[in-house]
């Protein structure tokens, strides 16, 4: 592992914005500030995407709105010989715990309740911390951002389990499992929180200098 040399003469790390450059976030090439499109790969460039906060919050709110019905409607409709059982996410986990499968109940609660809620909180915290220019703890906020980006996709596992179960367990009269309406809301919630996290401009975490006046006047 070799470190990169700093571009500045001093040992302080300079951002491209401080050097009067704008960088392409796809291909890492630098251009003079104000260049609208990367000349190498054609990706749109903005030195700091201030408008991104609106997209972050818009997707965040839609994600949260979808998360509520995802917990209220049944996720799975299980029909066995004598009974029909419609269970919500939390209801299903509680039932599993009653049958003694504490491990699986714990995993379901963790993956479908704890992680999504933590994700909503983390994105909101990052977005607010950028606005208040909380100068401390760049590194830990960046780690938080990377965890949110990484873990977001894994929430889809619930949807895939429902898909597998409801296609596999179609045993005519004996037992059938069908997806409930919550599955669609849960999938939408996951997709919108992923979009919200992707809209966040992680470079804003590392800016310490306060921007003067109206941020929109900058490129």
């Amino acid at each position: 592992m070799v470190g990169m040399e700093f571009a500045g003469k001093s040992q302080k790390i300079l951002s491209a914005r401080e050097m009067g450059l704008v960088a392409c976030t796809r291909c890492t090439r630098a251009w003079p500030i104000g260049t609208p499109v990367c000349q190498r790969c054609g990706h749109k460039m903005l030195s700091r995407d201030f408008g991104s906060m609106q997209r972050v919050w818009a997707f965040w709110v839609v994600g949260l709105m979808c998360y509520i019905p995802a917990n209220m409607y049944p996720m799975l409709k299980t029909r066995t010989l004598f009974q029909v059982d419609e269970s919500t996410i939390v209801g299903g986990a509680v039932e599993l715990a009653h049958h003694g499968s504490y491990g699986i109940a714990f995993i379901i609660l963790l993956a479908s309740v704890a992680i999504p809620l933590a994700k909503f909180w983390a994105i909101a915290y990052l977005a607010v911390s950028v606005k208040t220019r909380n100068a401390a703890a760049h590194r830990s906020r960046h780690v938080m951002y990377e965890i949110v980006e990484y873990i977001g996709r894994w929430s889809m596992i619930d949807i895939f389990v429902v898909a597998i179960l409801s296609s596999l367990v179609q045993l005519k009269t004996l037992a059938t499992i069908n997806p409930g309406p919550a599955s669609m809301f849960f999938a939408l919630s996951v997709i919108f929180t992923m979009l919200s996290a992707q809209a966040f401009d992680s470079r804003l975490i590392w800016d310490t200098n306060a921007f003067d006046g109206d941020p929109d006047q900058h490129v």
Partner: protein
Amino acid sequence: MKDTVDPAPSVNLEEIIVCPQCDAVYHLKVPKVGEKAVCERCHTVLIEPRKKAGLKIIAIAIATFVLILGATFFPFLDIDAAGNKNSVSVMDAALAFSSGPLLLLSLATAALIMLVPLARVMLTLYVLVPIVLDLPPARHAMQAFRLSQALQPWSMAEIFALGCAVALVKIADLATVGFGPAFWMFCGLVVLIVAQDKFMCKWSVWNSLENPKKS
């Protein structure tokens, strides 16, 4: 106070690299094969060249292509409970939500498990084959590579594989569940997709697309 300065004329833009995550600027210093260049402040890997990475990625991409097609249509799980049997392919699982408004979810699932990984494989081959053969880059190769990078978070084959495991545990006491050929293909697929992302040094690809070798 202005927080930006006019670009210093002394800076050669081809000799610097900017961390895409935190905007830190570095002098470009290409590491040796097997080493990697890491951003000092946010620890994002910037450059990580590997030996014969191009050929390896192409080999992996072709294998992935074949496995995705196979894993899609062969049955991957079969269930047997008191004489009632059922076997499903990934295609069936993706189309499980095929009633009413859930149809949209069906299409999204099919896209996330199969279509997006398949599209990424084809884009990768389209971009890398000319580079490895020392030919000029394919038309719109840069856009193709950019698209394949943008699709990366939406390629969820490995998540589906873990979903299989969870589903198996959930119904293990309800019925006997067996693995079909596609299940093993899917396991191989997961390994290949992870390996492909590991071998791929994005900066090296951009660099070769920008400065193609003269043959």
